């Protein structure tokens, strides 16, 4: 069993308790998708592609009053230690749902009745926090597709490791730590749109963990913004 934290509060990957892992986001990486993004978030490597607004198939799923959002979170067979069966697992179906519900408050669907916006996320390599990373890429891909949005959505987990609240749980900390709390926010609107918790926290730790996660989300937001700026406003400068 890995030692998850040294006495000096240094984590197994060398980070301090409130450090993010390395994050890089590239916008517009796919030709066919209407919008796309590629994120590396620690060891996570995730692609997001967006199509729409477009016609809904099957048609009976269409809504006369509003556009709908669909989301698929999928892991490549080679993304995890044991080869994964390509058919969607129950875990992937649940994550697809919580990601969709985290994005919905940000997307202005009322403007596109009878249409669908499809968000496809592919986890090429998985590390701790893949649902947050997926959400970060998906939000950027939606913006890249020109979908009208109230705000971006920025996600980051916090958790409890070796009795301390830490930011941005990695794979070892997720599996052997004490708690994992993925959180997503709309950073300007100030609302939490995804939140889950697995693990045991006292009420005080709960507050602290939530605060830590929200802090992380805000730093992720800056990275998302920068990636979008790079594509849309600085192409001349390079």
């Amino acid at each position, binding site marked *: 069993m890995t030692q998850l934290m040294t006495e000096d509060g240094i984590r197994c990957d060398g980070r301090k308790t409130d450090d993010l892992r390395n994050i890089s986001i590239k916008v517009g990486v796919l030709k066919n998708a209407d919008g796309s993004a590629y994120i590396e978030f620690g060891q996570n490597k995730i692609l997001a592609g967006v199509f729409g607004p477009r016609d809904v198939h099957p048609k009976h799923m269409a809504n006369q009053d509003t556009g709908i959002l669909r989301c698929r979170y999928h892991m490549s067979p080679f993304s995890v230690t044991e080869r994964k069966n390509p058919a969607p697992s129950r875990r992937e179906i649940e994550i697809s*749902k919580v990601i969709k519900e985290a994005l919905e408050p940000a997307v202005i669907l009322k403007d596109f009745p009878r249409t669908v916006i499809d968000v496809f996320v592919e986890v090429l390599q998985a590390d701790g926090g893949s649902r947050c990373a997926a959400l970060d890429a998906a939000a950027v891909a939606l913006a890249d597709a020109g979908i009208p949005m109230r705000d971006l959505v920025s996600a980051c987990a916090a958790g409890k490791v070796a009795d301390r609240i830490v930011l941005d749980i990695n794979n070892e900390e997720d599996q052997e730590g004490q708690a994992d709390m993925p959180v997503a926010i709309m950073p300007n609107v100030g609302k939490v*749109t995804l939140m889950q*918790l697995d693990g045991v926290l006292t009420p005080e730790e709960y507050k602290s963990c939530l605060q830590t996660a929200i802090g992380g989300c805000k730093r992720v937001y800056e990275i998302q913004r920068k990636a979008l700026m790079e594509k849309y406003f600085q192409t001349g400068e390079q």
Partner: protein
Amino acid sequence: MESLIIDQLKRERIIELLKSGKRIDGRSLDEQRPLQIETGVIPKANGSARIKLGNTEVITGVKIQPDKPFPDLGDKGILICTAEILPLADPHVEPGPPTEDVIELARVVDRGIRETEMIDLHQLVLIEDKSVIGIFIDSSVIDADGNLFDACSYASVAALLSCTVPKYEVKDDIPSLVEGVTSKPPVTTLPISVTMARIGDYIIVDPTSEEEACMDARMTITTNSAGNICALQKGGSEGFTPEQLIQCSEIALQVGTKIRKQFEQLK
């Protein structure tokens, strides 16, 4: 179309009432519906319970049988919770493979029991890495009137508390039942799930179908006997402010403590 207008009128009426601290069925905001628990309803199962939470009704059965452990988890027994909404429970449910809503329901119920470590799985090992005891907790919603998360969770916890674990002996790597010897399951804590809905600025506990139809977002928080928060799931197409999330945790602890007393009697 019509239903949308009616939904909207109903939402307006519900918010109007909430402003004066009331709900359409007369409850206060943090008041749960009456919870009835009956155990032992399926005598052939190793444990079972039928619970009513208002008009929502769930039957849960527990089956206990020897199994192979999961790879890399050879020092733990197996515990799996499932949930389904029977088509007779709700006119909108159709037979077929589980929808994403039902998958979420089952996984949230499962995590509530798993993350609190309600059952000490280390005590369910027959031979390390080879043979363990598996506990299958299957919940069926038979009448649906909102808050299926708590209803399935309560029925699962009650069925687990009521169950007797058969004894197995292992010979030549094959486990065989020892007739007539049973024990209580190794329970360490009582997980209590509390589901809340946000409607406008109001947080209400234990929403009915009618309230769920016009809620903005949903929050399920499971606490353990020590007053810790052990599992949480946000749902719905809107968000919560950080302050509301703190408020939700306080409600979950406070309401959970009340409900836990009802379960203490089952132990």
